[in-house]
């Protein structure tokens, strides 16, 4: 009997934690549907609440948020694609082959995780300016951002995917090679399909990281044709007043792509965590 009631108490505790944890998100949605006058006066919690859906119309007009959203989707989407492909190749190499340079490269991959962005910002900025002058525009371009992000997020992806490849029994490839597959063929036709959960987990992880990048998005882009969501979100802060109602609506919108990505890949993602492959 006592045990049953303890269990019930613990369950209630869980739901209390869920409620407390979700309250800021709930507030974000609530504020995004509130009237501007209530938002600026702090008169938010009212007995009669009528949702102001018009905020979700006005937010696209007040700031051209659609452009920022499109830029983020293109840049982060292609970054995810490239980083996952590059990382899959490199991770397979590190996981399967013993060769001179395997260990030093692994160390280099790890070291990239503790490099502050500030350290390579200016050299990279200067490189981009030089390339601009040489006739290859990099600054304030999609491909300039995608190139940088791909390089930034490839090392972490290599580590995640390496864990998946190590776990695959090598007999599978050996059998494929005996059957006449080339080594690349064995990788593409045998290894990649069974590592699909790992690849999906890695890809969604890269997308989440890229979507969250702020510093380089600020310093390497200058026009709304290329600038990403975090830059656009700030524009609701005006000279005199901040349109918190619209800003919260835009914040809700900018959570949606990552939310969809997470829920779509959740099954594999959690499996990836169980395999100890995804870092926090």
């Amino acid at each position: 009997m006592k045990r049953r009631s303890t269990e019930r108490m613990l369950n209630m505790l869980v739901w209390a934690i869920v409620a407390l944890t979700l309250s800021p998100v709930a507030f974000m949605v609530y504020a995004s549907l509130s009237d501007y006058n209530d938002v600026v006066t702090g008169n938010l919690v009212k007995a009669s609440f009528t949702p102001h859906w018009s905020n979700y119309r006005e937010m696209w007009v007040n700031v051209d948020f659609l452009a920022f959203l499109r830029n983020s989707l293109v840049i982060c989407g292609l970054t995810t694609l490239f980083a996952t492909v590059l990382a899959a190749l490199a991770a397979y190499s590190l996981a399967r082959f013993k060769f001179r340079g395997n260990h030093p490269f692994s160390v280099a991959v790890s070291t990239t995780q503790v490099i502050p962005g500030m350290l390579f910002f200016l050299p990279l900025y200067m490189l981009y300016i030089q390339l601009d002058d040489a006739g290859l525009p990099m600054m304030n371009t999609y491909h300039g951002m995608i190139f940088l992000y791909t390089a930034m997020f490839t090392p972490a992806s290599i580590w995640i995917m390496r864990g998946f490849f190590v776990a695959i029994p090598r007999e599978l490839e050996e059998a494929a090679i005996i059957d006449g597959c080339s080594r690349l063929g064995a990788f593409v036709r045998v290894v990649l399909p069974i590592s699909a959960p790992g690849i999906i987990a890695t890809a969604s992880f890269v997308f989440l990281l890229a979507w969250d990048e702020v510093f380089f998005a600020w310093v390497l882009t200058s026009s709304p044709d290329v600038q990403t969501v975090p830059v656009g979100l700030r524009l609701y802060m005006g000279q005199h007043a901040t349109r918190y109602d619209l800003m919260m609506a835009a914040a809700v919108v900018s959570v949606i792509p990552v939310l969809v990505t997470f829920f779509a890949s959740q099954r594999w993602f959690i499996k990836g965590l169980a395999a100890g492959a995804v870092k926090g």
Partner: protein
Amino acid sequence: MTAVSEPGLGALVGGASRASAPRRRKFDAFPYLLLAPAALMMVIVNLVPIVQGFRMSMLKLNQYTLSQFMGAPFVGLRNYRGVLFDATNPVHAGMLGALRNTALYSLLVTLCAVAIGLGVALLLNRDFPGKAAARTLLMLPWVVPTYVVGTLWGFMWQRDEGIINHVLVDVLHLMDHKPFWLIGSNTFFAIVIPTVWRAWPVLMLIFLAALQAVPEELYEAARLDGANAWQRFVNITLPALKPVIVIQVMFQIIDNVYSYNIVAMMFGKGAGYPGEWGDLLMPLLTRQSFSYWRFGEGAAVSFVMMAVMLVFVAVWMRTFRRSMTDEA
């Protein structure tokens, strides 16, 4: 156990990757070809800029010399001395406060996030109706981008129109007046709490996965021996989770030392000064390098931070290497 397949930074101290192909006499280009694209990217975006960044940290860079870039006057270690110790150096201003905040912030966020993550993982590691739903819902803060965390909480902490003061004062009557959260020493908590809020859910998920891998028989046997819940936690759960906790604590500390987005988004328009108690090293460095065009000093501090973190990681992995391989 799980964490060992994820040596990550562990490779820095010789956690050699387990490549098991038979040694070939003949040179084999295949692994190099697979590696080449990623390696090329890392050379262009990481290696070359870092070598340049190191060089830059010894150049006198300001608005007059910036266009010469690598040709700017060489000043040796003067940038390091200036930015770390010289009170008249513009980039130095506020550095000690930001250093103190960064240290406290990293430790406090890591401690809270790991403790809450572990506690909730234990709560969820039981069978109860709606378990999967609770787990999924609890992950929600983690999918909120950090820049949204900064703007959202920056709004919630507002003194007059913020929801937090409204709840604390008008609804719960816990205080009789509305405090400033974004001014003064309260700022520290204003940046710690949102960071913890976003960080713990993913730790919970990782710990939960690790908990599910602990064999149930161990608990059965301990119960038969008369061990109580606390004893089972200390003697079975904690040792089983140690490798995962060790790795996650390290990642958390690295993430938090380099934390930038939340502070940058919460105060003003990116260049806003978060005040003495809200400033961290990365936001300070970015703000001051850009406003005074002193990128040499910016590179110098970045380099010191990177060196400190590399030493931390090496010492950490060396200390805990045994406890991590024991589980393998």
